[in-house]
Structure formats: C-alpha cells, structure tokens
C-alpha cells in the first residue's frame, strides 16, 4: 500500500476524525480549543499599537482585553496559525498537490480569466470575513468545530447562519449552473 503521507487526499472521515482527536490533544495539553482568527486580531492589535502607540489609551479594546486577562501577544494560537501554513505546505509538497493558478476555474467561467479582479475581490472578501469572525468571536474552526463540539449556544447559532448566508451568496454569484463547473 502506498505511503499515506504521499497521497493527494484522504477520505473526509479520516481527516475529520483526525481533527476531532487533535482537539482532544489541544484541550488536554494546552487547555485551548482549535481556532484561527483570534491570532489575526492579536496581530492587528500589536501592529496598530506599534504604528500608533497612543491607540492603547484612546481605544477601549486594549483596556478591555487587559481587564479580561487576554492582552494581545504572540501565543499558542498565533503559533497554531504558523503551523497550519507549514503543515499544509509539507502535505502538498509530499504529494505534489500544488496549485499555482490565481483564478479558480469556477470563477473564470463566471467572471473571466483576469487575475486582477479576482485578487481585489479576494482581499475585500477576506477582510469582510475576518471582520465578521471577530464580531462573532470565532470562525469555522473556533465556532464551527471547537464551539459546536462543546455544545456552545453561540457557536451553533453562528455556524447555522454563516453557512446559510454562504449558500445564498454562492447561488446568487454562480446560480445553479455553477455546480457544473466545480
């Protein structure tokens, strides 16, 4: 049998079970749920303070987080994000499953092959997604997996609404025809 590390894909059940066991590991060793976007918030807070030191006193964010005992710093979750990049890089290198195209085929079918609009929209939609994640204090990992498995009320509400809105948005963008191009 081929070495699984060199395979391009694993069945979603194996990967899902792996992520489930990884959250046991995260809870047991770091007492921390898997999550991604808090690290972005902390990086943004550290950067904002470095560029404009007065913000620490003018913006209530810093006082509020200090009071919660969660001042912005380079922490477990920040390193988790770096690790996600490294892990995906290693996995894709081992299997040769690399992607260098800028415009995904479905996007190309709907909006044309030009890279510039795709990148501008990627920047803006990435920003909107992160803004939403920080409003709700979680994303697909923090709410969608870690929060729902803890049976958090906030997380179940979040993920149901987010995925419903995502589905509606996708059908508005690509229509039923889109399914033939993915």
């Amino acid at each position, binding site marked *: 049998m081929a070495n699984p590390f060199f395979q391009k*894909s694993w069945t979603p*059940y194996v*990967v*899902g079970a*792996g992520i489930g*066991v990884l959250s*046991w590991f995260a809870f047991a060793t770091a007492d921390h749920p*898997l999550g*991604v976007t808090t690290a*972005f918030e902390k*990086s943004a807070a550290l950067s904002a303070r470095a560029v404009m030191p007065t*913000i620490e006193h003018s*913006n209530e*964010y810093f006082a509020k987080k200090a009071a919660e005992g969660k001042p912005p710093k380079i922490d*477990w*979750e920040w*390193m988790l994000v770096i690790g*996600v990049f*490294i*892990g*995906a890089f*290693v996995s894709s290198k081992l299997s040769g*499953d*690399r*992607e*260098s195209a*800028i415009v995904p085929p*479905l996007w190309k079918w709907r909006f044309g092959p030009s890279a510039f609009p795709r*990148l501008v929209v*990627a*920047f803006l*939609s*990435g*920003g*909107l*997604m992160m*803004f*939403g*994640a*920080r*409003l709700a*204090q*979680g*994303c*697909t*990992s923090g709410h969608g997996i870690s929060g729902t*498995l*803890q*049976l*958090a009320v*906030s997380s179940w*509400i979040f993920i149901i*609404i*987010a995925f419903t*809105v995502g589905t509606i*948005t*996708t*059908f508005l*963008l690509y229509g039923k025809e889109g*399914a033939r191009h993915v």
Partner: protein
Amino acid sequence: MFESPERLALGLLTGIVFGFLLQKGRVAKFEVIVGQFLFKDWTVVKTMGTAVVVGAIGVHALVAADMASLHIRPALFGGILAGAVCFGIGMAVLGYCPGTSVAACGEGRRDAMVGVLGMFAGAVVFIVAFPLIQPIINGLGNGGTITLPQLTGTSPWLWVAGLVAGGMLALIITWFTSYRPLQFKQTHETGRS
C-alpha cells in the same frame, strides 16, 4: 508579548498537524468549499461533522475527568448575527474560510495569499473600529457563555449521544444516496439468491 516557549512549541506542533489534515482533506481548495455551498461536493460537511462528533466525545470525557475545561464564547446575539452574515458572505466570495485560507497559502494558492492579507486588514479595521461597533455587538443582549445542555437543563452526554446518532444517520443516508451502483448490484444478487 510572548507566551512560554513550551506553549509556543505546542501551538506550532498542533498547527502543523491541523494544516496537514486540512490539506489532505482537500478543504483548503476553492472548488471544494464553493462546491459545498452549491451542494455539489459534501467534503466540508463530512469533515466538519466527523470532527465535531469525534471531538465532542473526547472533549466531554476530558472535562468529566477534570482534565480540561470548556471554553465557551459568549452568546452576544448582535455580534453573532452581524458577524455570521459578514462571515458567510466573505467566505462564499473568497472561497476559503480563515483556517483553510492559511492552509491554501501553504498549498501555493495566490488568491488565498491575497485573501489572508485582506483578513489582516479586516482585523485592523475591527480593532480601530472597536469602540464604534460596541452597540452592534451588544445591541441584542448577551446570553452569556452558555451551552445547549445548560440552556435545557440536560446532561451533556445526552447531546453527545444525539450527535453520534445524527452522524450515524447521516452516514446511512450518504450510503444509500451516493452508492447507487452498489445498491443496484445488491438487489440483483438478492434476486438471484
């Protein structure tokens, strides 16, 4: 500024395994995530569903054994609603969620790299606008850091059992809807015997 080196190393290790799994699971791909929203490709739901069922069993066992504690985000209804709407639109247009866009960068995807830059910009906007958006976040009240078992006054194990049962049911439905050729073959074999 920094947590202890042990915790940083532990975070890095956990992240590497997470990123490896996301890439092998094909969820760091635009076509797979958008394919889920178009009901064409069910990889995202299968992966997340399995992770939640498996994760719930172990995490609740750890909590019951006093080896970990729950970390529940508050049900600030305004923030959750507004956040989920922005998040859903952003994720559908970008074609990656936050964790998978970082994994997609590792896979070499340029649009995800620009998306991650946008994500950082979005986080900066959130910090700068933080005082202004408090009315949105707190506008619809705060349900607190509450879980479904607490809300209903039931045992968490009842809910974990429900998740396992739901997962089993989904597997059975998947089996009967996506393996039609096998089903056809089985009927033939049954007919022959």
